[in-house]
């Protein structure tokens, strides 16, 4: 079986710094995979490389059998790969509803003139996208917030809105970049349900996350990075018992403890 996403030996150097170094991993259809690692281990850089925000220094990326690293950013999304951002990227002047509608832009087929004049098939299309948007907002629990300006939402809700926006592009694979940051424990509970619900729609998920509660609860496979390199890969159970991972995480903790002492 072909992997949905296959990352082969990618690396990224910023000047002399090797942010990502010869990294390979894959995501299978229908799975939730997590990418974890200490701060600065290259998790977000890795996502930025796959979505072409950064240029690769080396390596190849395949998505459902086709090569990704030659495409423009928007083409990657058109192939079925969507993402959210660690530091939220909102459209300042658009409402929550508009954000989600923006996500379904790429699936609109009707030509310019008929869309603008709302003639012929445009009407049906507008209705369809509006319905989808409402449905997605309901899914993430923002069903009644559609008319608000996105920037007026609290931090945690903005993250949910970004997820709805990404879902509106109808992805096969969704990257969630630290979705739990800034969320309360209660919100994380709901997020866990949401992530599972998304997966149940047949969308694979690559989760970059700090909050171990989320990762350990939802991820089926976990990839651990340290200094841009993969140091371990396996189920939650395996990772928790992997000595190298413990050193990477606890090593820091250990250092910190000794320093504090």
């Amino acid at each position, binding site marked *: 079986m072909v992997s949905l996403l296959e990352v082969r030996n990618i690396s990224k150097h910023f000047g002399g710094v090797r942010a990502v170094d010869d990294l390979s991993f894959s995501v299978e259809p229908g799975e939730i995979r997590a990418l974890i690692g200490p701060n600065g281990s290259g998790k977000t850089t890795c996502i930025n490389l796959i979505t072409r925000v950064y240029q690769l220094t080396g390596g190849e990326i395949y998505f459902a059998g086709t090569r990704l690293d030659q495409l423009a950013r928007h083409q*990657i999304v058109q192939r079925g790969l969507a993402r959210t951002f660690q530091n939220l*990227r*909102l459209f300042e002047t658009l409402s929550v509803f508009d954000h989600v509608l*923006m996500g379904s*832009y*790429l699936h*609109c087929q009707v030509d310019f003139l008929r869309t*603008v004049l709302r003639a012929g098939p445009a009407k049906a299309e507008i209705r369809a996208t509006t319905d989808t948007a409402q449905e997605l907002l309901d899914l993430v629990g923002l069903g009644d917030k559609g008319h608000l300006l996105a920037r007026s939402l609290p931090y945690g809700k903005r993250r949910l809105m970004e997820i709805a926006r990404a879902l509106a592009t109808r992805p096969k694979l969704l990257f969630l970049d630290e979705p739990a940051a800034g969320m309360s424990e209660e919100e994380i509970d709901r997020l866990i349900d949401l992530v599972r619900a998304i997966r149940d729609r047949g969308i694979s998920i690559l989760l970059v996350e700090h909050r171990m509660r989320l990762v350990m609860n939802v991820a089926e496979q976990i990839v651990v990075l340290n200094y841009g390199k993969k140091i371990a890969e396996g189920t939650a159970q395996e990772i928790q018992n992997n000595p190298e991972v413990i050193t990477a995480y606890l090593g820091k903790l250990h250092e910190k403890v000794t320093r504090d002492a």
Partner: protein
Amino acid sequence: MNTHRIRNGIVVALFAFLALVPTYVEAPYVIFVLNVTCINIILVLALNFILGYAGQVFLGTIAFFAVASYTHALLFAKLGWGFWPSLPMSIVVTSVLSLLIGIPTLRVRGAYLALMSMGFIIVVGDVIKNWMSFTGGVWGVPNIPRPDIGTFTLTSNLHMFYLCLALALALAWLSLLIEDSRYGRAFKAVRDDQLAVEMVGVSSTYVKVLAFVLCGVYTGVAGSLFASFNVYISPEIYSFNYNSIFLCMLVVGGLSSVPGSVLGAILLTAAIEVLRPLKEKYLTPLALLIIIILLFEPAGLVIFIERAVAALRKFIPGKRLKEARRG
């Protein structure tokens, strides 16, 4: 939906106001200025696509305008094409040019784009001025005929005004429709965050080029109307001063707002005529006005009207009941 109704209402009201002016004021000079107002409205709407909706600091609309007027003038006055064939032709030429300019230009952003647009104005000006055999060079193109409808020629400025007004209204309405469509949303999204737009699978370059082409189409119409209306065109018309005036109109009226663009064009065209006794000094109050508006109400003067209308509506019980019933 409510804000949309207010917005559309203001546009209609502004155009109705313009249409009614000639019934009360018959002075030929006022009628003349009304024509200029309509052409300015179209130009400001054009600039609004790029600077307002898409947020790109491209200030070269005057160059598109020049190309459009020259295309129209040469086809109409020299080749005798007639107004109605020349109009779509100048729209096509201008939008193709804006496409050609748009694609490479859009790789650059912010102040780079601002400079490139200034350079573009200079290049277009140089070509028009120096390509004697084709454009008539510095002498311009004289005797551009007025448009005709059927067998009726719009020689009088009043008739010309109704044509300009109708076209301006149609284009303003089209702007409103575009704003409410997914394209309008995409323009604003590109302005707010290009990367996020690309990350929902939309090419930001495509969106920006679309804004450019729309700007080209609008300036195409404005250029055609202007050439026929003014009878004579020459390179001096398309000056930096005139260009800054569009910018003022848009900022003063309200960036990213159709009623704002229309209001800005009306107010400033009138203001410039009122400030004429200041002679060469009229740019000073205009520049101060921009700064003041940016400082106190970056959304432009139109926001005051919108607020006033919204406040008035609260006092109309019937409306409130109806809305309560609906909601």
